[in-house]
């Protein structure tokens, strides 16, 4: 593999970029010019049929969703520590015996404690 890349290596990317932008601009222009234009109250509705839509879509929604989402993010992100651990697990076994295993047990038990705390605090109760 080459150590240095030259400017000329990027020309395909440049061409790709031009094509992408050109396609977007061309289609937008084309639909604008060719397509029929009708304006009316019904046409501007979000949905032409079904129940009449009410209010703004950007309503603040219940904080319960937020709480669940945040807790999910917190627990979800910790998974990234398990990937390198799992990949190198065999090396751990060779070098340190069961210590590598018990480190992860401690790590996960702290999570269980946290999870138990959340449940007992009632953060996951929906009603």
């Amino acid at each position, binding site marked *: 593999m080459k150590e240095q890349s030259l400017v000329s290596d990027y020309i395909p990317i440049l061409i790709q970029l031009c094509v992408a932008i050109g396609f977007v601009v061309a289609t937008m222009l084309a639909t604008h010019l060719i397509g029929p234009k009708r304006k009316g109250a019904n046409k501007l509705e979000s949905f032409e049929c079904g129940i009449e839509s009410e209010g703004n879509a950007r309503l603040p929604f219940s904080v319960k969703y937020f709480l669940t989402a945040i807790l999910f993010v917190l627990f979800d992100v910790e998974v990234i520590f398990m990937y390198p651990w799992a990949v190198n697990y065999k090396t751990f076994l060779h070098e340190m015996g069961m210590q590598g295993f018990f480190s992860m047990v401690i790590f996960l038990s*702290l999570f269980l404690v946290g999870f138990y705390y959340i449940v007992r605090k009632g953060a996951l109760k929906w009603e």
Partner: protein
Amino acid sequence: MNAIIALSLLGIFTLFTGIFNWRKAMLPIVVIGLAGVFVLNGMDYFTTPSWYADYTHMVIFDRYAVVFSAALIMITAMLFFLCKQYYQKEDNNISDIYGLILFTLVGGMLMASFSNFAMLFLGIEILSIPLYILAGTKRLEVTSNEASIKYFLMGSFSTGFLLFGMALVYGAAHTFTLDGIRQYTDAHAGDLPTIFVAGIMLMLVGMLFKVSGAPFHFWAPDVYSGAPTLITTFMATVVKTAAFAALYRLLFYTFGSAKPIWFDALWGVAALTMIIGNFSALYQHGVKRMLAYSSISNAGYLLIGVIAMNTHSANSIFYYTLVYSLASLVSFGVLMLVTQDNGGDDSYTAFKGLARNNPALAGLMTLAMLSLAGIPPLAGFFGKYYIFINAMENGYIYIVLIAVANSLVGIYYYFKVIVAMFAKDTAPTKIAVQPAYLFALVVAAALLFVLGIFPDWVSGLMN
């Protein structure tokens, strides 16, 4: 290291005392637990630090770390004595508040004992994240909310700078360990690459945010005056001590031989911090905000200790932070009592007549103010004395002159409080104080007095 593990477990346990409704037992458990942690930490003082090879040299409990950790634990324990009366009305989440304070202490101890950049970063974050929440614990008060969000924004902003600095230093030195970086710095002392220099500077910016050094201090007065006073006390004492422990450790153990690079910048910051802190404190109408600016100016004096960086510096910084923490504890403690019944009015006039109605409180406050002002028999004087002498040994005359002039300015606004307390009052009120609360304040004030007479007791602990 055992102290950190025990403290983390204590924090988790405290969270659960709230769930299982052991309200009564909570405070004794925390205080006894902290005493146990103090002993565990003290045991490390006598062992050689190499014992901790188990933790792959992420943290090192040398004497520097042990001594600073001991001070942090002690001040936190004293704060817990103030907690009960301060959070009287808060019933539902008191265990969470206690737990968060303990987690903050874990972060502070990591900041005093890191020997790897990863631990510095994690320590700062473990310290900061609970504090963001603690600053907003008065949920219904907008000022508390505002302090919380401002602290959060400035904290994460400064962490960004710190991390960018770390990345650049890592790029040059190819390691995160303090030993490795010191070897690199020593080897290339004459011609350090640009990214390394930029890295040092960015890390300094990040750390100066944390210690509220002058161009980066603007968040401090708002956060200090908006946060609940107990948390403000915590920030001014434990957080400040931990931040200085981390800053000095970082500069001394890694970038010591690169001193010409950061010396001028830090010299300027120290001078600016003292001047801005003191002169802004002069114009404050509220005592809480005055104490916030006083905290900034004290950061300036401490920075002189950091730039002096000789064999006595660690000791003098430790002595100063300990003494400043004790004095802040007393002054904020009395401030909390004065403001608890008058609707949060913390102006100088709120202190009028305190000497006649509550002579004990007025006496404690006077001691704290005299110590902060640096009046000779008290410990605050020796704190400043050690710092200044230390800088003089290296021949830094000008910065010491600036500092002495600033101390004289400081005397004016500290005495304004004393004068207000001894002024005549028209509406006498007696302030109710719980015995535990008074006990903590008296112990802190007594320590100020004792440490002033026998400064050698703590000033040689790291030798």
